[in-house]
């Protein structure tokens, strides 16, 4: 029995229109083993697993469970086969308790008491930290994830698939999760984690299966491989892991934020007394668990989020300061402050999805020129320039950007924002969802801007990148600054710790 595969996928192919998301992929999953499914974004990892969990059906190929050919037409049927998937975006009802969410969709009689007991039992067995009677809205992100995992276990799953489970977790929470995964492994479950983080692969998995652009590259034993070898498999050719970080001579202060406090519509403090200085010629990384105030910080500086208290000033070469608080984005631009902002929500805030590149270049300059008519010549030239210089793949500069791939969308946005030589450049999760090559393109563009003397504020989620790309790292925790550290000397553990608690030495 031990040698038999829990799941064997043979020649699986899935197409979406012209895109071949999976091209005759073979994959085997064993009990008592953690398999990492590794690949860049868009390499087809999630698609492949969605076919295992009944969300998609393969166009070609066969799936065997314990050597028997099976067909999975719905998530419910997947459960019947003992396959459960924990998706990246949780599917929980906020006002229900953990146990109620777990029971949801089951045919059995609603026996909350029994369910509570059973949930508790599962929790104890694997070392989960949730109370069955807690309402979901009272839970942290990692607790919600736990509910999803328990939900799958409750349904008797022996094969668990986790889609990017660590994307929203702090380093400490990640460790806890990995501990749980190891417990489940010992219990004989087969576990697949979808990820593109190499360090996690090395830490937790037994085997690594690598996909690249929808193709199956191979499976290796984790202990026989190393990050460099895996990267080579993932990207096809060796990509230097080092991000170029030149030092800028004579920095001076550019952006001064003092005692910035912002509250949202419900009166909850989103930023609490935030102070920092960003200098010319540096990339100031901003780290923090998602939702620690990063979004509000950038939007407040850009004039898009109401400021309750404090001051945001931009300093020019002659030491003249311009106050930004109270100014609308247009006023800020008219004040001659060269501010560029790459927001997190690219299509929802930074770009107009239904328009082509030209229309999107116009977003910066549509007011330019006299008269009522749009001046399209210059944006057209700019669109062509961005397309060439950043190698944007698009049928034409008038093709709706919504239909471009994520990487190309981001290139359009970043290309526009750096086009007028900004003195302050803010980016939020600039490489989220991008493949490694595009990510490096973005890193290089940001570094280029830094060396031209811009103050770059880089809000990021990947600590490894922050440590290598940024000059200094500001760590936010619950809307407060828990510290600012030198990126060249700090460690990942130090930053991770600051993300979860306010440091003693709050920067004055």
């Amino acid at each position, binding site marked *: 029995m031990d040698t038999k595969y829990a799941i064997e996928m043979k020649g699986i192919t899935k197409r979406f229109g012209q895109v071949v998301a999976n091209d005759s992929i073979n994959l085997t999953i064993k009990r008592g083993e953690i398999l990492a499914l590794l690949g860049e974004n868009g390499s087809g990892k999630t698609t492949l697993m969605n076919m295992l969990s009944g969300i998609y059906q393969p166009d070609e190929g066969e799936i065997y469970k314990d050597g028997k050919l099976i067909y999975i037409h719905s998530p419910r049927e997947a459960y019947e086969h003992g396959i459960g998937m924990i998706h990246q975006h949780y599917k929980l009802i906020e006002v229900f308790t953990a146990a109620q969410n777990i029971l949801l969709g089951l045919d059995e009689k609603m026996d909350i008491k029994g369910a509570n007991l059973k949930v508790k039992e599962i929790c104890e067995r694997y070392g989960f930290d949730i109370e069955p009677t807690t309402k979901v809205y009272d839970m942290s992100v990692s607790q919600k994830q736990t509910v999803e995992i328990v939900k799958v276990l409750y349904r008797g799953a022996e094969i668990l698939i986790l889609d990017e489970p660590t994307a929203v977790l702090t380093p400490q929470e990640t460790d806890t999760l990995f501990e749980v995964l190891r417990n489940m492994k010992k219990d004989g479950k087969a576990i697949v984690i979808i990820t593109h983080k190499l360090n996690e692969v090395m830490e937790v998995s037994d085997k690594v299966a690598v996909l690249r652009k929808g193709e199956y590259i191979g499976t290796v034993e984790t202990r026989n491989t190393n990050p460099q070898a895996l990267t080579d498999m993932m990207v096809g050719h060796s990509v230097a892991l080092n991000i170029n970080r030149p030092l800028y001579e004579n920095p001076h202060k550019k952006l001064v934020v003092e005692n910035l406090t912002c509250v949202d519509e419900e009166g909850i403090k989103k930023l609490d007394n935030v102070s920092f200085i960003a200098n010319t010629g540096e990339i100031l990384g901003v780290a923090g668990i998602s939702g620690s105030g990063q979004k509000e910080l950038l939007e407040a500086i850009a004039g898009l989020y109401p400021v309750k208290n404090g001051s945001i000033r931009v300093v020019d070469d002659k030491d003249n300061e311009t106050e930004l608080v109270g100014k609308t984005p*247009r006023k800020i631009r008219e004040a001659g402050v060269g501010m560029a902002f790459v927001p997190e929500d690219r*299509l929802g805030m930074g770009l107009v999805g239904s328009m082509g590149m030209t229309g999107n270049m116009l977003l910066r300059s549509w007011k330019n020129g006299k008269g009522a008519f749009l001046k399209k010549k210059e944006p057209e030239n700019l669109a062509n320039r961005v397309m060439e210089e950043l190698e944007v793949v698009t049928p034409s500069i008038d093709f709706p950007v919504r239909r471009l791939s994520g990487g190309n969308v981001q290139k359009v946005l970043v290309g526009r924002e750096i086009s007028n030589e900004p003195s302050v450049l803010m980016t939020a999760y600039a490489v989220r969802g991008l493949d490694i090559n595009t990510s490096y393109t973005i890193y290089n563009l940001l570094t280029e801007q830094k060396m031209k003397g811009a103050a770059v504020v880089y809000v990021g989620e990947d600590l490894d990148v922050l440590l290598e790309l940024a000059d200094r790292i500001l760590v936010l925790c619950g809307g407060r600054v828990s510290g600012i550290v030198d990126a060249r000397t700090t460690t990942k553990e130090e930053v991770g710790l600051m993300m979860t608690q306010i440091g003693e030495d709050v920067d004055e």
Partner: protein
Amino acid sequence: MSEVRTPLFRLAKREAMSREKIWAIRVGSIIIALILGCIPIMLTGNNPISAYAVIVQGSVSRPIYIRQTVKIAIPLLGCALAIAPCFKMRFWNIGAEGQITMGAVAATFFALNFAKTIPSPLLLAIMFITAATAGGLWALIPAFFKAKWNTNETLFTLMMNYIAIGIVAWLQGGPWEGRKGSQLIPMFDDAARLPEVFRVHCGWIIVLLLVVLMYFYMNKTKQGFEIAVIGDSVNTARYAGMNVGWIIMRTMFISGAISGIVGFMIVSGANYTLYKGVANGVGFTSITVAWLSQLNSFAMIAISAMLAILEKGSNTLQTRLQVPASIADIITGILLFSMLASEFFINYKLIFRGRDKKEVNA
């Protein structure tokens, strides 16, 4: 076998289609709608082909019919142009009915009181401008509340319709009543009537002019760009430094103003008087026109002509074959459904079971 539980068909997103192909599908859907329209005609016991022949005959076979058809098309087209910028902005203005009515009220005020004292061209110009202003201001009210307090514009504009109609009902029976007890407003003097060009009131020139203006406004101007950006994403508009509230109010004013002009053309060019049914559903039918033409001003000419032909022709149908004239409404409804379905098939395709499996299982 796998066949057993594979769904009969499934949906897949299509790749980009050529423009020609997209329009071919749209035209095809109109033809399908006309074919489906045969069913209700047959239910009335008539031959659908002869019924369609009567519709065409009754609407375009003689100059006088054509003129009547054009008269129906003018307000439809004008009003569709009016709501297009709102819809582009995703501001659901369904209050064109009221805006038409208020424009008509303003025009009527001058027609009733100054026909004797102001020379006709000047009077008509004043009626035109005041009608536009009145319609614009009427539309500005819901826009202001939307911009200021984010109220629901759909309900608001809808309710404003009934207020406008109520105002006319009061004028009809009160201050502007002609012969006591008649509940009617007197007919306009010749001075307050729109002159005819090719024996149709010159409103057709105004709307055709508006078609071109609206095309340029939406596609070439800064304001048109602002409207398109807001329609796509309000956050992007704010990010780009646009004053969203102000743009909503400005656009609604323009929209209401055009509806007001339509109201002026109806009272001054067609009815020569004002009554509470002055808008006669044009404000709603024009939503269909705007939607079916994908907010493209030039396509609106064709769609409004088609709906006008249906309406005029089905009146003939009623007199000649005793088919209820409301058959036109039924066919319009089928048209709308089939156009919406065509948009779906432009974006998705059906894959039937077995078709692409054959090779695998063989």
